[in-house]
């Protein structure tokens, strides 16, 4: 068998891309030895791989990732020698597996539960920063039929995403809700069932669905989970232990986090510019609307900064980590402080 190796100048990312493509045509037996032989070599410390960095998002490009887009547009990554590949997500995106298998250098997951359960099942991952220092997760109901506290959930029909089903069930139990009197139905990312009064409340982000609905004249009432003993960090950045152990990969990840933080600071300072970047640069083909993205960004801003103006972006304070652990433990997930590290945010 011919033995292929990474040609000089071929980065690790492009190598994987080629390898991934070849495995479509090459039979399993031929591909796997090739990958192990050269894959370890490439990850070890090839000179050409330094500047490329891939990050996988959980959702399609929008205001939730404003800081990353601004950092890219304003050249904050380039200035530090980093060539960032942003891979958008979607309803069926598999962020955790792509980070676990080192297909990307860093992932962003909307809820820390997904990372914590993967770690509980043996994945070697660490959360390296919190995009949202306060949880915007809420029960959203119509303003004329509001759900103001957990007890009022009883007897209602609620729309959830299946991904959040466990969290929803346990949250209700902790708050003394008789789950037998609640009907949970799966809705996906679409707030339409609430607007059409098919369900009484939906599980969503305070910074998201209420904004879209308000823009189209539907007024909502928002009941944040954080107000009922369930606060945690969200939109978490996470990396594999392998990335953190490899000095070159770790340095790239640190550079990415620094530039992204500066990007978010810029986005919060000049929200008009940030919305402009999202609409023109990333959402151009999706027909995003400037006004909508600006409002969405304004809505998410307090959660990014954690409310208090002095907090450092992405930084996971001991208090926030403790709160996250308490919340996740309360829904039956086993985790401890070792899941979180601020090491890429220091200095």
């Amino acid at each position, binding site marked *: 068998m011919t033995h292929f190796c990474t040609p000089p100048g071929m980065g690790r990312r492009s190598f994987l891309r080629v390898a991934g493509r070849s495995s479509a045509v090459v039979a399993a037996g031929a591909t796997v030895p090739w990958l192990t032989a050269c894959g370890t070599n490439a990850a070890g410390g090839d000179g050409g791989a330094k500047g490329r960095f891939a990050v996988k998002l959980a959702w399609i*490009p929008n205001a939730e990732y404003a800081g990353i887009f601004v950092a890219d547009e304003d050249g904050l990554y380039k200035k530090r020698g980093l060539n960032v590949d942003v891979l958008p997500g979607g309803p069926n995106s598999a962020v955790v597996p792509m980070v676990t298998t080192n297909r990307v250098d860093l992932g962003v997951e909307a809820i820390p539960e997904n990372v914590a359960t993967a770690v509980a099942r043996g994945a070697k991952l660490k959360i390296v920063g919190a995009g949202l220092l306060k949880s915007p997760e809420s029960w959203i109901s119509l303003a004329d039929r509001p759900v103001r506290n957990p007890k009022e959930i009883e007897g209602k029909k609620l729309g959830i995403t299946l991904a959040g089903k466990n969290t929803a069930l346990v949250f209700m139990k902790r708050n003394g809700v008789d789950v037998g009197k609640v009907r949970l139905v799966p809705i996906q990312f679409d707030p339409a069932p609430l607007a059409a009064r098919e369900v009484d409340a939906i599980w969503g982000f305070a910074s998201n669905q209420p904004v879209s609905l308000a823009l189209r004249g539907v007024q909502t009432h928002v009941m944040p989970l954080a107000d009922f003993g369930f606060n945690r960090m969200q939109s978490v950045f996470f990396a594999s232990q392998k990335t953190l152990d490899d000095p070159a990969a770790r340095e790239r990840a640190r550079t990415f986090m620094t530039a992204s933080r500066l990007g978010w600071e810029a986005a919060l300072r000049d929200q008009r510019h940030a919305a402009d970047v999202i609409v023109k640069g990333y959402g151009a083909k999706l027909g995003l609307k400037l006004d909508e993205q600006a409002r969405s960004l304004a809505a998410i801003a307090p959660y990014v900064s954690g409310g208090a103006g002095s907090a450092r972006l992405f930084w996971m304070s001991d208090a926030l980590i403790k709160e996250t652990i308490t919340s996740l433990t309360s829904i039956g997930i086993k985790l401890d402080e070792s899941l979180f590290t601020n090491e890429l945010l220091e200095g």
Partner: protein
Amino acid sequence: MNAVARLRRVAPPLLTVAALLAAWQVMSLGGFGSLVPPPADVLAQMRDDADYYVPNATVTMSSALRGYLWGNGVAIALALCTLPFPRVQALFERIAVGAIALPLIAVAPLLAIAFRGDLPSVILAAQAVVFTTLVAAVLGLGGVDRTSVDVVRAAGGSEWTVIRKVRLPAAIPSLVGGLQIAAPAAILGAIIGEYMGGSEGLGVAMIQAQGAFDVPRAWGLAIVTSLLAAVAFLALPLLVRLLLPWTRVTDTVLGARATRPGRRTTRPGTRALRTAIAAVGTLAGVVLGWWLLVLIVPGGAEVARGPREVVPYFATGDTQLVTASGEAEAPLPYLLSSLLRTIADAGVGFLVGLVLAVAMAVVAHEFPVIERVLMPISIALRSIPIVAAMPLLALMFGRGIVAVTILIAVMTFFPILVNVLLAMRAVPRSAVDLLTAVGARRRHHLTKLLIPYALPALLASVKIALPLSIGAAMVAEWLATGHGLGASMTVAATLSDYDFVWGGVAVVLLASLMAYRLAGALEDTALSRLE
């Protein structure tokens, strides 16, 4: 063609469009107000969005086309292989059933870590067409007129001459039908692929529009998607006629009946033994295929689990899955109760879809006007992602068994309708003339000619629809009810509980293959009675 005839041809589809527009206008004024925008609003939005459709549709159609070519190429190649080696037909069909039955929730992470760019979309588009095209091609190649074969043989022709001169030309109509069915399926497959992540494409645009509660825009996208699917569906026969002009004459002679490969035995002992061997073989095949799949993808062990991990998992029963009651449950009973629910959902949906499609095929055959009215609707139903239509469907039909049944019927109706209608059309003209000459009524035409003639196609459609309805039931459970395997596997995947997911994959594959065998046995029995 004179002006009146042309008007007669064009009028029904136009009237359908007009009727649909009227119904739409009425709905937008009624109780569905917030989910059904008035047609004028949607048209205005579509005008504003005009230059946004082109780049997004280009991306999606490029993936769909590549998947379409690959999937159909593979299916046709496999079908051709069954000619010199009839014994492999069952094996190939089983592999294709496996391909269609693989749940997206288990496949998505594998595709994500193995492939970049739009390749996952291309693969999902190909996966969506392989099975139906294979069945259509095998049906066409097998369903030849026995006298023609005898004539070629008597004239000293070899098996190869029979294939070239009789089987291939005879397969064209059925194959074209298969390729037509595949067109909307490939587009839908590509869109589902885009749901795994992307920055452009019709699927991504649809997610954006729905998430932002931009209802007129979401409707505009659904209309554009349906139009593209309809154009592909309608253009295919024209394209074939242009490339292969001789296929225009599809008349066969009276007395023609398919020669069917395969052996049949009447001795119950032998039959029982064969069934047992087949069951064990199927089980072994599932385990082997499953294990190979885990090996193929580099790094696949992170997201795919082989029997060696899954069996102990279900034996020891450690899980974090929470069931509807809010309590954690042992995985094995949970898996089995989910499976039973899925099978029940699929069964009901399958029966309703089958009855509706056959009834519709008969009506459409007797009154061609009805076909021209119905086809646009069924193409639209087949090509719009259910995710996009779900909020409206839930509002109209709830989220119980009615909604599930409708969703499954929508997904299985179209292939059955196309296949059966095609077979009814292929009834030899001489036979029709004969019955007319002896003064037979319409009912006799139906019972003596159409139904017996369409039976092989109908049974082939059952073979297609049974595994499809299991997949469709899982989609319905994921989107509408939140019960059954479709839902519990999704929850397990978000918890990285891949042991449960792959346990689910194994039982779904097994159930689909058993359903397929059942349909095959039914086919054998029915056709041998007929002979």
